[in-house]
């Protein structure tokens, strides 16, 4: 009798155990553990600029430049046995540019290698998210290669959402270890005389470290906001040694800048859904660094929904900055100065940037192609108060 009872109990427990196992299997179906295609983005842009303050020729001369940029971004995901979502992001970027001012590093050549260049930059990121706990951690690696410059980067990130998913906090640290093969203007090469700093053909390091902290909050059904702080530190060769600087006594030297820079930008985004058809997107940033540049950025974009799958988004951005203490225009630096640059990117100016974007995301796919879920086109015109003008047109194709 005792033997029969034990057999029945064992059978019962066996049946319970087998059900328990099947329930566990159902909660995380096997199919979901397979690597799944999430989306792919193809972004292309054409950029053209012109101005008359080229730093290569000491703050005077053409700044004509064209840049054709492309990135392909692939996102895959899978769930592991513990129900955590793993997201893998692979990006490959290729930029091709031609620069009239770079050609003046050595004007004796009609089209020197510096006239045009190609930059290739692959990157890979891996994110592990526990959706039940609202936590995720991520890792990233990247590299960038061009004619005289290579970069290797790595990053680590953490994110946490509140239980009601109305508040999100994220933190990210990044480091980039770059190497720059130094090129001096042709006149300064014969005696290897670049005055201070790295000399012709030196392999100079430039390392960048940054931390980014952001906090976002859903404020009500129509309004959400984000605040972001991203302190950064750079060390190594921060000057562009093929940029010329002409002094009051007509002496010519290669640009020379401190080997350290500390940056502190604080940004905020506020998005508001106005009525049923308008989304107001805004961005504000305050920036300060130890080269005496202070800047403010304000941007507003109004996205008007023409239908449930099409929208048009005119935008305007205003930017202003103070002058770096190391900047002076052509022929205005004195030889007593320790650091010197005639790069107008470090001068005092303000800029206006405006344009519009259109976005199509029909449920049946763009142009009836079911896999092509979204098409976005943007055009922008940039105008700097010191005469630099540029135009950019970009396209984003999204596949799902």
């Amino acid at each position, binding site marked *: 009798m005792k033997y029969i009872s034990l057999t029945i109990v064992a059978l019962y427990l066996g049946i319970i155990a087998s059900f328990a196992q099947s329930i566990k299997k159902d909660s995380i179906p096997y199919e979901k553990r397979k690597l799944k295609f999430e989306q792919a983005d193809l972004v292309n842009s054409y950029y053209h600029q012109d101005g008359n303050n080229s730093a290569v020729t000491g703050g005077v001369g053409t700044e004509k430049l064209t840049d054709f940029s492309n990135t392909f971004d692939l996102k895959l995901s899978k769930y592991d046995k513990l129900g955590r979502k793993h997201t893998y992001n692979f990006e490959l970027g290729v930029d091709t540019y031609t620069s009239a001012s770079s050609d003046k590093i050595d004007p004796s050549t009609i089209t020197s290698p510096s006239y045009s260049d190609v930059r290739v930059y692959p990157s890979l990121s891996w994110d592990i998210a526990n959706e039940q706990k609202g936590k995720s951690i991520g890792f990233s690696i990247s590299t960038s290669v061009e004619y005289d410059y290579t*970069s290797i980067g790595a990053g680590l990130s953490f994110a946490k959402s509140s239980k*009601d998913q109305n508040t999100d906090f994220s933190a990210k640290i990044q480091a980039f270890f770059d190497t720059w093969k130094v090129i001096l203007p042709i006149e300064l090469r014969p005696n290897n005389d670049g005055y201070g700093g790295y000399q012709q053909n030196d392999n100079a390091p430039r390392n*960048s470290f940054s931390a980014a902290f952001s906090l976002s909050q859903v404020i009500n059904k129509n309004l959400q906001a984000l605040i972001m702080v991203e302190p950064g530190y750079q060390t190594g060769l921060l000057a562009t040694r093929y940029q010329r600087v002409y002094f009051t006594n007509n002496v010519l030297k290669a640009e020379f800048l401190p080997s350290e820079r500390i940056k502190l930008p604080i940004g*905020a985004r506020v998005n508001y859904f106005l009525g049923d058809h308008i989304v107001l997107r805004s961005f504000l940033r305050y920036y300060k660094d130890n080269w005496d540049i202070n800047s403010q950025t304000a941007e507003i974009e109004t996205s008007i929904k023409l239908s449930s799958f099409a929208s048009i988004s005119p935008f305007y951005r205003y930017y202003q900055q103070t002058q770096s203490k190391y900047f002076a225009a052509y022929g205005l630096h004195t030889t007593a100065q320790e650091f010197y640059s005639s790069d107008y990117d470090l001068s005092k100016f303000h800029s206006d940037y405006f344009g519009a974007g259109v976005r199509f995301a029909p449920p049946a796919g763009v142009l009836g192609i079911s896999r092509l879920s979204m098409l976005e086109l943007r055009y922008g015109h940039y105008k700097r108060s010191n005469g630099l003008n*540029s135009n950019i047109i970009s396209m984003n194709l999204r596949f799902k």
Partner: protein
Amino acid sequence: MKKLKSLFLLAISIIAFSSCSSIKAYEKMKINDAEMELSARKAEKFEQNFQLYREGSSGANGGKSGGGCGCN
């Protein structure tokens, strides 16, 4: 410049002092709209890059914060 600083402080104040009511998942139809994302659009990537190169400041916009020369 003072106006921009005031605007920035106003935005920070909105975020800090807004009385945030807990919004349920089913009430987030507008919040979850693609246009409401609190990040730059993918198509803005290269706009952020040229602004980084042509201006003395960078960061806090979700864009590139290092790596690569950007010296042209």
